[in-house]
């Protein structure tokens, strides 16, 4: 891999770090505005924000400023240090996810050979933060929410990883760039025009991945950890102001990251049909293509979120252990057989 710009190591690292830091607020803003504000309002026959700026786009800035103005409240009984750390831990897991997400042949913060493994590993750090938030708030609702989140996220980590295994077997690499290249150079029955997006061969894995991602993101129908109408916000019930904003940003930033993972692993990532895989122009066009695919997947994530009711946590556990995990195992076995036969 050639470097993007011929810069000293520390300058390149600085630019990449700045980009990665800037991207979380930006991506979560995009998702919140497009889906949480506008699409949700459209689905529920409301207008949504339309007054602040053109089409209400500046509403988000107003909301962010509102959160910054709020008083930072610690509950009297709270474990203050853990209480303060929790949102940072959750957000850190989101930041770490962005490190390996590729947006072009060279447009990636760090091209790890074990990118898939790394992404799956750091995404589960957020469980820790949520559990910390639930425990340290000294609130029974928060405790219930935190425990539910722990049970749920651990249960859905498995189908998520097992679903990705199918892709890894087919691509023969754990490297996310390698997975994109495998899709770009693949063929569908000898026709290589559009490569071979793994959604075609790994459709079952794609479905399992999306369902498990929905649970990882604690979106409806798997949102019992927050469950507004029963736990009134669950683990973040006691958080106000900026700390709540961190949770909020982490939620949507992670949604964006998971949509990006799905588009890299199943929809062909940044590659555009007709270009060479290492064509330099893809460093410019790739991010745009990725954004389109990410928004498409995020649309489905949020569509389900606004449409479905919520499961109960015992039903959720049953669904994970009795349906998703066996299906994912079947998918791995089938992929292995096909890999050996063809």
């Amino acid at each position, binding site marked *: 891999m050639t470097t993007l710009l011929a810069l000293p190591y520390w300058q390149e690292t600085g630019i990449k770090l700045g980009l990665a830091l800037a991207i979380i607020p930006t991506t979560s803003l995009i998702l919140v505005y497009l889906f949480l504000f506008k699409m*949700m309002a459209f689905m*529920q026959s409301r207008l949504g924000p339309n007054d602040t700026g053109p089409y209400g786009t500046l509403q988000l800035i107003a909301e962010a400023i509102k959160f910054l103005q709020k008083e930072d409240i610690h509950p009297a009984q709270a474990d203050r240090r853990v209480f303060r750390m929790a949102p940072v831990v959750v957000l850190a897991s989101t930041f770490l996810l962005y490190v390996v997400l590729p947006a072009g042949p060279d447009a990636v913060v760090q091209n790890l050979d074990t990118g898939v493994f790394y992404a799956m590993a750091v995404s589960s750090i957020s469980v820790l933060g949520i559990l910390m938030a639930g425990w340290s708030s000294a609130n029974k*609702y928060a405790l219930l929410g935190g425990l539910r989140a722990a049970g749920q996220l651990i249960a859905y980590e498995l189908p998520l990883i097992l679903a990705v295994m199918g892709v890894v077997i087919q691509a023969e690499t754990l490297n996310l760039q390698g997975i994109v290249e495998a899709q770009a150079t693949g063929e569908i029955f000898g026709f290589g025009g559009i490569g071979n997006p793994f959604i075609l061969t790994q459709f079952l894995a794609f479905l399992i991945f999306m369902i498990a991602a929905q649970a990882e993101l604690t979106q409806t129908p798997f949102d019992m950890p927050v469950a507004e*109408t*029963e736990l*009134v916000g669950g683990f973040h019930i006691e958080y106000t102001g900026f700390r709540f904003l961190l949770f909020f940003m982490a939620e949507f930033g992670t949604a964006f990251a998971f949509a990006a993972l799905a588009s890299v692993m199943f929809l062909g990532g940044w590659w555009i049909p007709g270009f060479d895989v290492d064509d330099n122009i893809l460093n410019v066009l790739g991010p745009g293509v990725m954004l389109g695919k990410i928004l498409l997947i995020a649309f489905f994530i949020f569509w389900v979120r606004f*449409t479905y*009711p*919520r499961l*109960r946590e015992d039903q959720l556990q049953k669904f994970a252990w009795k349906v998703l995990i066996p299906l994912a195992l079947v998918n791995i076995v089938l992929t292995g057989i096909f890999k050996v036969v063809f």
Partner: protein
Amino acid sequence: MTATSDREQMAYISSQAADARVNVELDTGDMTLNIGPQHPATHGTLRIACQLDGEQVVVAEPIMGYMHRGYEKLCEVRTYPQCTTLINRIDWLGSFANEVPFILAAERLMEVEAPPRAQWIRTILFELSRVANLALFLGDMGVQIGALTPVFFAFRDRERVLNQIEEVTGGRFHPNFDRIGGLKDDIPKGWIEETHSVMVKMRTFCDEMEDLLVGNEIFQARCRGVGVIPPEVALSYGLSGANLRASGVDWDLRRDANPGLAWDQVDWRVWTHPDGDSFARYWVRLQETREATRIVDQLLDGIPSGPIMAKVPRIIKVPAGEAYLSTENPLGEMGYYIVSKGDLGPFRVKIRTPSFNNISIVPWVMKGVYVPDVITILGSLYFILGDIDR
């Protein structure tokens, strides 16, 4: 019957608890969780004090009175026409339906009867407030289970019904329109056609709710078999309305004890469901909303001509006596027991509200359920805080 079931359920719970102790060898103490008085699922200030074992409810006790406004006492220092203003605010989602039993009871004491036209319009407004009230339930149940969208549809479409009520009475929520001997005003011109079209829209809304919630697998998984109330338990706790009919008891005061309103003039049916679970309660209310739109449609086409007010003295004095009259309100049986000593106002008013009795089954039905089911059961029992505490 209740005692036996109670004992059975207690025995089941204690056996479960004993099993847990033997298997895990870890005695987890119960946790007290206050659901309310400030909680979104209680629609106001109801408090449910739950003893939890993990996420399972061991004991749930509803604690009410946070919004007690003393309406029974306040009625004693008001004249009869003034009382309707208060009574409007008991079940605030179906206000007009609150006025009717009170006025009918007073009319019975005075031995006057409203002319047929007034009775028909009363019935229409009664059913309209039922549609407005139940429409909100149909959407709100979705929110209790986590589906955000239905409630917005409910608010949107309920507004149409409220507009129709407002056009006649002048008040969206608190009409204060019923008078002893008839009604305050006649219906405005063109109102009948408009209401017909609104009823068509409400039936579309019911179809939407059926698509969004009733047919949804997750909704069914959350509601079927949850909070089952057998018919004999429902009767012994004094449940009424759709909660009772969802347990399979075919009992509707509109049909069984019609106090002279126009329900017997139209073709309609009482819906029941044999299951008695949360799903049955939702389903029965959905069918009742549809049935109410049908009743309104039929009544609108047959409003008799004539005066809307009977001959009553300008200053109303109700002769001494006692009367109890109840009607089938959106939430269930609502009754007023009026004691008069021949004054301008009642000597004593006892208000029997449906939600108060419906909520009394909470300790029985919530033993052994999970915390999320507490919310679905509360939602499906469908109470209004003003109706509990009055």
